[in-house]
């Protein structure tokens, strides 16, 4: 990433212009050519600096009211294998290995599930438990009760 890439990032991290030719609009804002902007954004996308270009919904507004952070205590020597399997379940949006904080927090595997009803979320949790089987040493589910803040990841503009 060079300075020009960073300028593009700062100009777009709040969103893409809602104009018929958004890359042209950006080019005018940044005093670059449209071709340069498009080429650089495509390159950042290819290298993974841009995960994707698209829309991020508020899951509550789409009717997903039961957003559960399911957390599991599984043996460390099994977690990579189990994490891959849980991540492949179609309703899991994120799946991570995170550190325990004993004694308060014994859980090391995190998987986010999203249901429009409690029953739907419960069914998803049962399916995860089935995948983990005897390796599940403990579990909990934390439902989000309110979004307190949700902005994109900002950087460099402080």
């Amino acid at each position, binding site marked *: 990433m060079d300075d020009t890439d960073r300028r593009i990032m700062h100009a777009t991290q709040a969103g893409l212009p*809602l104009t*018929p030719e958004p890359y042209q609009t950006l080019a005018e804002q940044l005093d670059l050519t449209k071709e340069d902007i498009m080429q650089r954004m495509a390159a950042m*996308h290819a290298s993974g600096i*841009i995960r994707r270009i698209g*829309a991020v919904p508020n899951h509550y507004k789409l009717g997903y009211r039961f957003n559960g952070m399911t957390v599991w205590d599984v043996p460390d020597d099994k977690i990579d294998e189990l994490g891959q399997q849980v991540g*492949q379940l179609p309703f899991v949006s*994120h799946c991570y290995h995170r550190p325990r904080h004993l004694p308060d927090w014994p859980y090391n595997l995190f998987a986010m599930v999203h249901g429009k009803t409690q029953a739907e979320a419960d069914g998803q949790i049962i399916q995860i438990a089935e995948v983990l089987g005897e390796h599940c040493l403990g579990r909990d589910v934390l439902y989000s009760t309110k979004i307190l803040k949700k902005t994109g*990841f900002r950087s460099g503009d402080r």
Partner: protein
Amino acid sequence: MAFASQTMDKIDRDVINTLQVGFPICDAPYRQVAQSLGISESDLLARLQALLANGTLTRFGPLYNAEQMGGALTLAAVKIPAERFEKVTDIINAFPEVAHNYARSHELNMWFVLATETPEQQQHTISAIEQETGLAVFNMPKLKEYFVNLRLEA
């Protein structure tokens, strides 16, 4: 929530589902997406504007990977006494490094994502939050990512 689902029509749902997958890099990308949805470019732009304005969409544009940019991301939790919850929310949300923040049903009742440019700034921000709130911050950076798919069907 009920409001949004009542006012969202089939085309809005198509727009959301399509735009969660991706968006083209070309001269007139909205026109291209609009054509694939069978609507006009101006209709797509108006719908996007409305979905952003009423909060159905929180963002539209490139989603940058903070770690690829050389930054540091972590998930952190705090245990806040009920009577201090609002006050602590204001303190924590005031940190620009706090990108997302959720109230959750647990003793650890607030969970937030910190995005900083360096691991040192992450540590510094955590210390500052502990100092300003007087509460312990449980830092839970990801050790490994198994899967990320941010799409939800509208």
